[in-house]
């Protein structure tokens, strides 16, 4: 059981990629991308977690108390906010594509054909 959070992170990563590959809608694709991205948050926070430890905030808690890793929390919190704006950019591109192609299905958009 002690590896469960890491396995959850790996599963989220792969399942998000599956959604991106099979997507029939660019909005759905953007949501799948956030699922993939969320796997990195689960992984980071799981790595920094310690049993019987507090948050790394020493207000009313003596310095030297057992606390979880502040670095991975800092990485996660900035990225949660930044990723929202990146998803917004993808959605704005989707609005633009719909205006020209009249569809949001990646399989029907000429420019997406490889």
């Amino acid at each position, binding site marked *: 059981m002690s590896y469960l959070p890491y396995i959850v992170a790996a599963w989220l990563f792969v399942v998000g990629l599956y959604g991106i*590959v099979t997507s029939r809608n660019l909005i759905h694709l953007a949501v799948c991308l956030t699922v993939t991205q969320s796997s990195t948050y689960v992984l980071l926070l799981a*790595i920094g977690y310690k049993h019987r430890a507090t948050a*790394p*905030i020493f*207000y009313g808690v003596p310095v030297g108390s057992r606390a*979880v890793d*502040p670095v991975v929390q*800092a990485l996660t919190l900035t990225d949660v906010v930044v990723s929202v704006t*990146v998803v*917004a950019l993808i959605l704005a591109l989707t609005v633009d594509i719909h205006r020209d192609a009249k569809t949001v299905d990646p399989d029907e958009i000429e420019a997406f054909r490889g």
Partner: protein
Amino acid sequence: MNRRARIAVFAVAAAGLAALLVASVVDLPAFGHYQGAYGNQLNREAVAERHTTNVVTATVFDYRGFDTLGEEFILFAAVVGVTLLLRRHKDSEDHQEVLRKADDDRVRSDAIRIVGLLAMPALFLLGLWLVAFGLVTPGGGFQGGVLLAGSLFVVFLAAGFRPYAHLTPAHWADSAEGSGAAAFTLLGLGPLLAGAAYLHNFLGSGVRGTLESGGSMTLLNWATAVEVTAAMVLLFSEFLESYVLPSVRPLQ
């Protein structure tokens, strides 16, 4: 490549990737037995060194401040991208004209209006508190900024587009977004010009556990709050305008 072939290729790649991921995580320290030296050292020393009791915020704005500069510019670039894409199709940049042309979507339910009226100032105050005490207790510019923007969205939810647009004029959001990013950059460059390190804390450490702690980290914290608030407001306004303005409405 057709759909079936694409899924077949993906299935092979995903199976390989999943195997590699599982093989690599079983060698990590077991969950709950973190061994990283860097985080532990920050937990031991940040409070004494920087006088900030929230070590996460100290990491964001000091120990890893340069990394945060990068994050801020990803945020800035993404928001500029959204604005450029969505504003291309607008008839007019004129705020008054946007307001005049917008659909009448006034909220008429008294219950929703009253809940909004109560929730908005409470959320706004909570957002300010999260930012202000970000170096002392849980919070900071990123979290508080999102909440401040959220409290402004409540105006749209509980009153309608016009009151929301009156409260968040685009030119204000534009300049706040730019100023936030510029302030963060300049607060780093200033000490560099004076011969110190980039983002050097030039205000000293202050008094531990109070609003005076953190020195110039406080300025970085507020610059970030302004940038994040403006970013969220801009994103919301741009998408909302393409929804309420008949001339630019894209998805029908």
